[in-house]
């Protein structure tokens, strides 16, 4: 995947000005301070935002994104949230076991870390060939981070992850790109 000459601004705030990036590795970790545009870059790759200039070239058929916020529907329980992106109930039950969360729980009952895991499960269940993960491990302890990293890697899909922590990049065997 290649990003060429990418420019993007929110009203008057320029986020990217003629950005060029190459994603050569199966797993890439985009590192940068807050406000540098990591989330915006992931949204641009996902096609949720349109660049003002430049191109994002890739041949992925389906892209899944885990947002920086959990964005779960508060009026549905955990399982129903997951069933929105995947019709296969067995797949949903399987991933619920893997993330160690009871599917009947209401979203309002989830702690920050639990909601993060459900949000990750949703991104994994979507069945994409490119996975964009925006700070996927915030609110998780090291043990759970490791467990979730293994779960992500077991899917064998291309990864682009954003964050601030080199340990996360290491857990995901990712090449680090600074922006």
């Amino acid at each position, binding site marked *: 995947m290649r990003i060429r000459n990418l420019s993007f601004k929110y009203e008057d705030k320029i986020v990217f000005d003629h950005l060029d990036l190459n994603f050569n590795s199966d797993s890439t970790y985009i590192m940068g301070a807050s406000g540098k545009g990591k989330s915006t870059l992931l*949204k641009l790759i*996902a096609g*949720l935002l349109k660049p003002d200039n430049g191109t994002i070239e890739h041949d992925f058929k389906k892209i*899944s*994104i885990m*947002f920086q*916020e959990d*964005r779960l*529907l508060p*009026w*549905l329980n955990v399982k129903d949230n997951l069933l*929105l*992106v995947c019709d296969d109930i067995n797949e949903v039950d399987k991933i619920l076991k893997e993330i160690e969360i009871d599917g009947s729980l209401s979203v309002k009952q989830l702690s920050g870390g639990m909601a993060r895991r459900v949000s990750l499960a*949703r991104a994994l269940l*979507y069945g994409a060939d490119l996975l964009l993960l925006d700070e996927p491990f915030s609110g998780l302890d090291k043990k759970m981070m490791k467990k979730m990293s293994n779960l992500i890697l077991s899917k064998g899909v291309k990864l682009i992850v954003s964050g601030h922590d080199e340990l996360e990049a290491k857990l995901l065997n990712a090449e680090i790109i600074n922006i």
Partner: protein
Amino acid sequence: MKNSILQNKIVRNIFVLIFWLLIWFLIARIVNQSLILPGPFEVLNVLLSLIKNINFWTDCLISIYRILLGYLLGIVISLLLVLISCISDTFKTLIAPLIKIIRSTPVASFIILALLWMGKNAVVSLIVMLMVIPIVYENVLNEYYSVDYKLLEMAKAYNFGFIKTLKNIYYPSIKAAFLSALISAMGLGWKSGIAAEVLSLPKRSIGSKLYYSKIYLETSELFAWTIVVIILSSTIEILIKRFLRGYINEN
């Protein structure tokens, strides 16, 4: 605990009712002219004689039918207008002054105008419909615009499509505002419907009975019909609230 609270509430309401009946009784005694202010017992007697007559029930049912018809039509049209406004900004801009006019114009002006244009029976339903539309339209549309854009972005990312987004994000987000608008609209629709009946005088209606009681100086009957209006209005409001609450809990 819950039962004792309920019992206390019932006792309190009965006490409030008795207090105001007593005030009414005393003022009626002081005035001592049933043509101006009949006492509660006199009104109760008239009410009891009214409800023994089959025509009373027919009049009530026909009034309820006309008002509910206007109410339901108003809801359906409001939702259609909301749907089109969500799709087309031009439509929303064009319809905004119309909604404002409907909301601000005194109901009597509409009733008189409607009487020039159509039959007595249709006027009542039309007026109720006109009163319902701005309430439901504005409440639902405002709520539509306050739906969490982050959830909508998530729906787009996971390719929900129109129906799935409507069912899983828009509907749950606007449901509470929609249902409370339905309750407010019923209260206003009922009052406007009776007012329309008083001015348009359809043959079988509560409104015409109120009007003729006044014309023939049957003040006790006027009071009795007013009590009927209040009881019916409260009962319908309670039934709608119960139905909608049940609906919220189920969903």
